[in-house]
């Protein structure tokens, strides 16, 4: 089974892109499953179910979604094997720009959209910089020049990635991404496999439910700004 991680900022079009890909892959008889990681709630589960795609939804709630993801992905892969999928797509919303869900030897896709502005690529961290494929959506509503500038800025921060425009509504451009998915490496299990980049650190009193403000209440991994 091939595993693919798909990550990107909220509302960048991850689910739409995956659904357009799924339509084409299903025509070739490929069995596809999706694990959707989100924070508080997600309607996307229903979008997948409606398209006839087996889906598991995981809500991180009060936890860092990245940490929640990495704690569950191995079990998810085993679910994929048991279900007999050819391809398991793991979709996670990059809620902070420091998100880092990509795994070594697993095809990593990052979805960003043209409407987020030309300065956005430089602001997104490992989620974009360590991806193998960067999908750029919403190109149908901006000018050609803006599309070219945006793609260039993505190339600047991740010169290694294939940068592919896809229209999440019509599926235009998704063939190039399909080719990348088809050549993705196989994943048997993830135990012992490493993340491509360390996840955002999370170990302070606020992680454990502290709500009071003040230095006396801050214990653990604390970083302070310089206001001098």
């Amino acid at each position, binding site marked *: 089974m091939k595993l693919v991680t798909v990550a990107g900022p909220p509302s960048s079009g991850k689910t739409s892109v995956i659904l357009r890909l799924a339509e084409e892959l299903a025509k070739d008889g490929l069995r596809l499953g999706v694990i959707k990681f989100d924070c508080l709630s997600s309607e996307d589960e229903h979008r997948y179910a409606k398209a006839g795609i087996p889906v598991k939804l995981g809500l991180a709630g009060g936890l860092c979604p990245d940490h929640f993801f990495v704690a569950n992905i191995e079990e998810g892969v085993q679910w994929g094997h048991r279900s007999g999928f050819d391809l398991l797509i793991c979709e996670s919303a990059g809620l902070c720009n420091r998100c*880092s869900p990509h795994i070594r030897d697993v095809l990593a896709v990052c979805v960003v959209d043209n409407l987020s502005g030309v300065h956005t690529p430089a602001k997104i961290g490992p989620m974009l*910089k360590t991806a193998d494929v960067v999908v750029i959506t919403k190109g*149908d509503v901006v000018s*050609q020049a803006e599309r*070219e*500038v945006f793609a260039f800025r993505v*190339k600047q921060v991740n*010169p290694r990635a294939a940068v592919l*425009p896809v229209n999440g509504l019509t599926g235009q451009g998704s*063939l190039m991404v399909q080719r990348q998915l088809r050549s993705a490496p196989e994943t048997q299990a993830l135990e012992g496999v490493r993340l491509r980049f360390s996840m955002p650190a999370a170990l302070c009193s606020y992680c454990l439910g502290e709500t009071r403000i003040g230095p006396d209440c801050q214990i653990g991994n604390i970083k302070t700004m310089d206001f001098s």
Partner: protein
Amino acid sequence: MTDLDLLHTPISDLLLKHPYAKDFFTLLGLPSTSCHTTVKVFFDSLDQDHIENLGLVRDELCSRLHDFIVQMEKLKTGKAPTLQSITLCGGRNKDGHPENISLELRPGDVVSVVGPTGSGKSRLLADVECLAQGDTPSGRRVLLDGQPPDESLWLGGEQRLVAQLSQNMNFVMDVSVREFLTLHAESRLVDDIDAAVTQIFSTAVLLAGEPFTLDTPVTALSGGQSRALMIADVACLSASPIVLIDEIENAGVDRRQALDLLVKQEKIVLLATHDPLLALLGQRRLVIRNGGIADIIDTSDSERTLLRKLNSFDRKFSELRDRVRHGQRLDFDLDVFLAECLSPAEQGQLE
């Protein structure tokens, strides 16, 4: 250049040879004063936290810089291969009937694509855009200069075959025309940015008819001005050899002149349209039916003559629009008004 050579190069020397590498160092937060140190000294001076916050690993900085330079060299204006021809080899329609065509497109060709909604126009354009190799539902194949495309160049997205212009496209950046064109020219790694900006701007003003300035915010341009700027920009700055035009409104931009400009810039123009004024501007029309190319019609001389008449009607219609715009009444004899546009005098003037 090996990674080791790269590490021991002073940054100032590197920037002299590869000016665009400035962006790499700026993204890492290089203060302009430290340009005289070598790449290695600069990398070593970076704080571990800072590198991590950028989502990078110290050991990979050098290979990233190397990849960055390789990638930017590929994107450099003028480095893109100039195509002599693009060949579309027919596949099959939705019923599996073969198309039996081989369509060769050369720079300067203008081809209209016609067919009802859902007939497969988008499929055709998608096949061209993704360089189909028999692996799309249509089974079509696209050849560049008669050969299957070089995967490393085209399939990774470094080069895009198709630039697109459609009625739905808007400017979303909050910048002036000058800043907008500068950004685009920078991303195309153009050497003389000011010259490129001036050239595109003056071309756009000619196309638009109504003047605007370099300091006008792009979001404040009228529909016609925006379209004119987009067309001039695609013609002069986009690296893509094919320009796909998905309808252009008839008001506010000289479409004939726009096409001439694209042809002069050696673009292959595909026009998806139902507007006879636009469709007849093409040398050929691809008729799409049931997912396949059902026919290729060459624009005939009598159609060209008809187009001239249609254009004179169209000018009359613009006159009516102008009258409405200026608060006038339209109470006149329509037959007289239209007869005038087909008068022998006007016909002669058009010839």
